[in-house]
């Protein structure tokens, strides 16, 4: 089993999974591995903590893809026959670029970029990262400069929120659903329909009028761009569902992570999205654990041999748990392609670490 086979004839690889399972590292290792196999690859992360930058030894990846120095890759043991590009997503900048591209005229563009609600939302609020990741993915795919795009998705429980992100954004900005706001802004309360009039007055009591006035301003200027957003959202959806896209799940063999992986798997299948396989990271290896018998004591003396034995007992308990959990995972997700990566010594946070993962991810074709 090899990631290379999973990615044959694929343009887009989306890595999903819960936090702390090594998803960012796995995404970077997949991208570096495919670059070593002759592809021109871009890996993008939307992780707010910019961990990918650390792992690729780049101080700041910025909102533009940057070429990872082939010498660095070579020094770590990769053979960069292709190219590895990397970026971390700046949600605010991506959002601004979209507005600039989609605004029908300068006046609208400036009205949106200058609107306080737009500034707060595009800058500060959770969720915009997810929206923007999908936009950027789509944009890079449209430009067609890469053989493969690898997307590292945001951590935590809402790991699959990004799937709905484009739709949610376009719905939010959609003129039909917001007619009521912009209508209220332009014509005042008296002229909106009876149903929405009641709703509006209720909302006013619940929230305060200033918010609504600002919102209606925001939406009336944004509304003119909403058709563009709706079309884009549809195209992003089509890209995600395309047979040239694949979703990989990354998990650790811990109970909680496995549960989430099963949950993600169901959601992907429910959404009809192309699923490639599961990477189980940090498996403790039981082949290390056969009984050494009396040999240890002969070689090490009683005291150290006892310590080594106790350590091994603890290790075996955890390795057995990993194995049981993996069995649970297999049972729950059926005959799904799976790659296990052993718990490698030391911490994986740099290019050398990615190279150590490579032999497990790309074992054989």
């Amino acid at each position, binding site marked *: 089993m090899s990631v290379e086979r999973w990615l044959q004839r694929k343009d887009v690889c989306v890595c999903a999974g819960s*936090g702390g399972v090594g998803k960012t590292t796995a995404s970077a290792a997949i991208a570096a591995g495919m670059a070593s196999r002759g592809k021109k690859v871009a890996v993008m992360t939307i992780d707010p903590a910019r*961990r990918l930058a650390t792992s690729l030894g780049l101080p700041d990846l910025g909102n533009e893809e940057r070429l990872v120095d082939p010498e660095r890759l070579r020094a770590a043991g990769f053979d960069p026959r292709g190219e590895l590009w990397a970026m971390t997503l700046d949600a605010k900048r991506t959002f601004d670029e979209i507005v600039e591209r989609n605004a029908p005229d300068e006046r609208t563009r400036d009205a949106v970029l200058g609107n306080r609600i737009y500034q707060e939302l595009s800058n500060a609020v*959770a969720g915009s990262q997810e929206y923007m990741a999908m936009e950027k993915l789509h944009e890079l795919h449209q430009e067609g400069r890469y053989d493969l795009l690898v997307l590292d998705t945001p951590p935590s429980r809402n790991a699959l929120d990004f799937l709905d992100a484009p739709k949610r954004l376009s719905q939010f900005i959609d003129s039909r659903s917001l007619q009521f706001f912009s209508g209220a802004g332009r014509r005042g309360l008296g002229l909106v329909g009876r149903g929405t009039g009641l709703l509006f007055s209720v909302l006013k009591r619940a929230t305060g009028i*200033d918010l609504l006035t600002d919102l209606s301003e925001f939406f009336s200027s944004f509304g003119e761009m909403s058709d563009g957003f709706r079309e884009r959202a549809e195209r992003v959806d089509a890209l995600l569902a395309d047979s040239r896209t694949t979703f990989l799940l990354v998990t*650790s063999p811990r109970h909680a992570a496995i549960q989430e992986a099963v949950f993600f798997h169901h959601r992907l299948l429910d959404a009809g999205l192309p699923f490639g396989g599961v990477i189980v990271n940090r498996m403790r290896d039981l082949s290390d654990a056969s009984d*050494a018998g009396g040999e240890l004591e002969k070689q090490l003396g009683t005291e150290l041999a006892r310590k080594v034995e106790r350590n*091994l007992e603890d290790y075996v308990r955890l390795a057995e748990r990993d194995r049981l959990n993996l069995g649970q995972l297999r049972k729950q997700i059926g005959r799904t392609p799976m790659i296990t990566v052993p718990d490698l*010594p*030391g911490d994986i946070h740099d290019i050398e670490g990615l190279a150590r993962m490579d032999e497990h991810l790309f074992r054989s074709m």
Partner: protein
Amino acid sequence: MTGKGGTGKTTVAAALGLAAARAGKRTLVAEVAEQERIGEAFGKTEVGYTETELAPGLFAFSVDPVKAREEWVRYRLPSRTLAGALNSSRIFGYLAAAAPGLAELVTIGKVWELAQLERKAKGSAPFDLVVVDSPATGHGLAMLRAPSTIGDIARVGPIHRQAYRIHDFISDPRLTGALAVALPEEMPVAETLELEKRLDEEMDMGLDSIVVNGLYPERFSRDEAKRLAALDGGGPPGARAALLEHERARAQRSQLRRLRRGAGAPVLTLPFLFEPELGLEQIEQLSRELERRLP
């Protein structure tokens, strides 16, 4: 409590809650972002949007943003008919689900409500301590920032006032403490240092403590490790596992030193527990450790 995903936030939150409850505080652990994991160790699989007692004096609550929003609307609108109309309005549900930031605001708003001495929720008794098991770093920060963000958008009016009441509460060090949970590994340490910096810059808040979870014991001395490494052909299997563990324990200590050098907040550690799954007994054990080590 916040920190990188996978560092054991929920376990540490449960241990902290247990320690507080033992000290006689009526304590609630609030989970956010649909996690619902805390009940498991206490044999309660469904916690939900109710104050569920896990142990004497220890309660859990799972903050569902949709339910929190409906509760907030009911609270804001004294008329049940109007509140019902708004909550069942499709346009409102649509907008509220799509509006970035609103889910974070009502979530932290419910946490704030749970922590008030005069509870707004009907028939609820006050808690002495509310432990919030909040989302991983980036989303956790976004949640903390939501009240001031939305408050600034609203400028004046009831939303502005209420958002700022919440903001003032969570940024007041006498009322709210911030704990980060980390692992003694490269990336969690980097993320914790960044979290401390961003909390200061964006919220003017400091971390009260950093809890480093899962610290491996140093079982072997340097000399012993040398003897193990010198064995022929890597030695028997147990020796390889021992060297692996020795290397891990040493790498962890170097990350711990890095964290201590870089962080302003005091750093305390919890041991790695060699148990297949963490149950009540282990949470109990960690709660005793926290009791001893927390200032």
